[in-house]
């Protein structure tokens, strides 16, 4: 299975090994791991909670992996996103891509992350000494997706303003 939504942590080495196993055509493996920061806007973060939309999340990420296979000459892809309660420094997300040569794997990995940031239904809630707050979407993430020529609705902007 190429997409997993899970509460438990993941092992980057084991995931990359599984993606690579038995495929001698692979000449490049690119992986990205996102982690929980311990500070935001000058406040210390004590924990982060990740909510998602079960069913839609898997569907949205599978569609984005299909799109990556259409756009890039890649051999395999693996996406893991954690949900539930996470502590600072913990891993949140893994995207790993294999290809014959590095260029396509680098591009596909970045494409998948840009897509995931703005199109997959996850929401982060940070707890600081000031209390808990939902993290705001960032327009720079919309701009990152737009450079791939995706005509998706802006995520951070109000749809009707």
């Amino acid at each position, binding site marked *: 299975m190429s997409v997993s939504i899970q509460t438990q942590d993941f092992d980057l080495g084991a995931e990359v090994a599984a993606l690579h196993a038995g495929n001698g055509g692979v000449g490049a493996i690119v992986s990205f791991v996102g982690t929980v920061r311990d500070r935001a806007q000058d406040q210390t973060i004590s924990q982060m909670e990740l*909510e998602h939309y079960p069913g839609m999340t898997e569907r949205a990420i599978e569609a984005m992996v299909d799109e990556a296979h259409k756009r890039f000459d890649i051999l395999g892809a693996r996406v893991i996103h954690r949900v539930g309660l996470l502590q600072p420094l913990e891993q949140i997300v893994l995207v790993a891509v294999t290809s014959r040569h590095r260029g396509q794997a680098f591009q596909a990995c970045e494409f998948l992350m840009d897509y995931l*940031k703005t199109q*997959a*239904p996850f*929401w982060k809630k940070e707890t600081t000494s000031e209390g808990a707050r*939902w993290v705001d979407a960032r327009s720079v993430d919309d701009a990152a997706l737009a450079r791939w020529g995706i005509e998706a609705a802006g*995520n951070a902007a109000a749809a*009707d303003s």
Partner: protein
Amino acid sequence: MTMKIQLRYFASLREALGSTETVEIEAGSSVGALRDRLIARGEPHAGALARGRALRAALNQTLCDESVVIPDGAEVAFFPPVTGG
């Protein structure tokens, strides 16, 4: 003619409105018309779904535009901009 649909809310909207509810709407209603109908109920819906707030919608678990017409028995979700990754 009316039809029943399932509504789902996430993140800050879930905290304000609950996770899910079943509503009856006029057949042929769009997602935007549904949002307006919910706003017309008054608080807490009016504030949570207010026009001008950045919200996104999904029809049957796929992101959608508010002009999309809702089919019978559909699942419609409203939620804030996504912040995963």
